[in-house]
């Protein structure tokens, strides 16, 4: 009912018939780029606003409430302010690496967002190795973080970058293994096929307890991978001022900040797609009246609703748990999450073998 495929196809065919192949390709590329850019900017700004409001609510404050009704334009004002701030350059820094780092961080997050399915037909690329692609691209971000910290030639930055590197690469294993559980269930790495396999129930319901374990592990590891609290050792404000981006100012700092929020969105969107059924509505088995009502809510709302729920969980973690020490952090990954994950994967393959899932 709410399929975006015909709309996209009609735009593509209109371009193909009106212009020569070269111009049609170029215009569709520009359109795609503009849509992506607008989406990225709006989402980034409002995630920052949401975080500030939710954090304020949890600390019994009001949060931003001056610019616009309820402070909704606060982050836009902040962005304009950051654009007009001086870009300070550190004398002993490595200038090439110092400038290239924000590019790497933003490129990694934008390229990952491109392959997320927002609704039926509303997906820029549907790669047959979608999950692997997202994992590969989003792990490029840590290179940017390491480069940023190292090139700044500041003690805080180097310590922050090293911690961040150790943390992100450790938790990437758990993210990958938790997603492997769902890949084994669905038998595909393509996002559209994974969603199609959940039409009769989301994997978190169909997959029994192992899917729940995988979901919890994924949430913990995903929070750690985005360098967010309680795993925010890389930018622990009270000990490292701002970690790897201490020396960045103005809009360059804003890009690191933006990338953190977009990575959080990517993690939440993958959790939604693989565990919570993507843009599929919530259905109760053989309760047709209820299912029909749910079908009337457009898939885009389902997708963003579920994603917002996962993002809210991650914000909740950040503002309730105290920060971990680095030895606790690494012990949690290598001594708990990784062995549990391996056991879980064996359990899941046993369930698939015996056909004990729905």
């Amino acid at each position, binding site marked *: 009912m709410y399929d975006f495929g015909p709309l996209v196809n009609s735009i593509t065919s209109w371009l193909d018939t009106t212009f020569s192949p070269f111009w049609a390709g170029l215009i569709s590329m520009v359109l795609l780029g503009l849509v992506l850019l607008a989406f990225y900017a709006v989402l980034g700004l409002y995630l920052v606003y949401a975080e500030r409001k939710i954090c304020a609510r949890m600390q019994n404050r009001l949060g931003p409430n001056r610019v616009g009704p309820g402070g909704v334009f606060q982050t836009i004002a902040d962005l304009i302010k950051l654009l007009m701030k001086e870009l300070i350059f550190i004398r002993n820094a490595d200038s090439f690496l110092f400038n290239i780092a924000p590019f790497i961080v*933003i490129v990694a997050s*934008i390229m990952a967002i491109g392959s997320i399915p927002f609704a039926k037909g509303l997906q820029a690329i549907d790669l047959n190795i979608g999950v692997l692609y997202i994992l590969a691209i989003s792990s490029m971000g840590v290179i940017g973080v390491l480069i940023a910290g190292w090139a700044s030639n500041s003690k805080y930055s180097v310590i922050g970058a090293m911690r961040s590197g150790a943390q992100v690469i450790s938790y990437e*294993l758990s993210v990958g293994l938790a997603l492997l559980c769902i*890949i084994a269930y669905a038998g595909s790495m393509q996002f559209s096929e994974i969603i199609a396999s959940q039409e009769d129930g989301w994997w978190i319901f169909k997959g029994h307890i192992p899917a729940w374990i995988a979901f919890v592990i994924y949430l913990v590891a995903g929070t750690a991978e985005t360098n967010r609290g309680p795993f925010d050792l890389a930018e622990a404000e009270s000990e490292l001022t701002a970690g790897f981006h201490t020396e960045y100012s103005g*809009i360059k700092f804003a890009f690191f900040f933006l990338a953190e929020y977009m990575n959080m969105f990517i993690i939440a969107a993958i959790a939604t797609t693989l565990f919570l059924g993507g843009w599929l509505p919530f259905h109760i088995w053989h309760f047709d009246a209820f299912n029909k009502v749910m079908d009337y809510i457009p898939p885009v709302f389902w997708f963003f609703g579920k994603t917002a729920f996962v993002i809210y969980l991650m914000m909740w973690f950040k503002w309730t748990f105290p920060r971990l020490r680095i030895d606790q952090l*690494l*012990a949690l990954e290598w001594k708990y999450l990784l062995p549990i994950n391996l056991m879980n994967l*064996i359990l899941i*393959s046993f369930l*698939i073998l015996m056909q004990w899932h729905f």
Partner: protein
Amino acid sequence: MESYSLLTFFLTAALLVGGAILFSHYAAPHSVNAAKSEPYECGIPTEGPTWIQFHVGYYLFAIIYLIFDVETVFIYPWAVVMREIGLTAFVEILIFFTVLGLGLLYAWKKKALIWE
């Protein structure tokens, strides 16, 4: 088409960052002063070199990560065809994980997983 989309994403990101930095470069005020271009260290002058050989613990974890990450890459194709192959795939992954688990246990016993 797919490669064009990927190229579009890359160019969009590069143009966004490049454009914003270029705009900020011209729009923002500039001033030069000796203290401003020092690394931030709460007001005291920075001591000694920053680019030193770092704590070996980080490298140790990076090496263990490398081993396990390469192993994970082997599991991806397995996960896709698990359902079709059935029992053979299950036995194979048991053997594979036994070897992998022994490796983890070895690192554990050698105290490579303890941060010091």
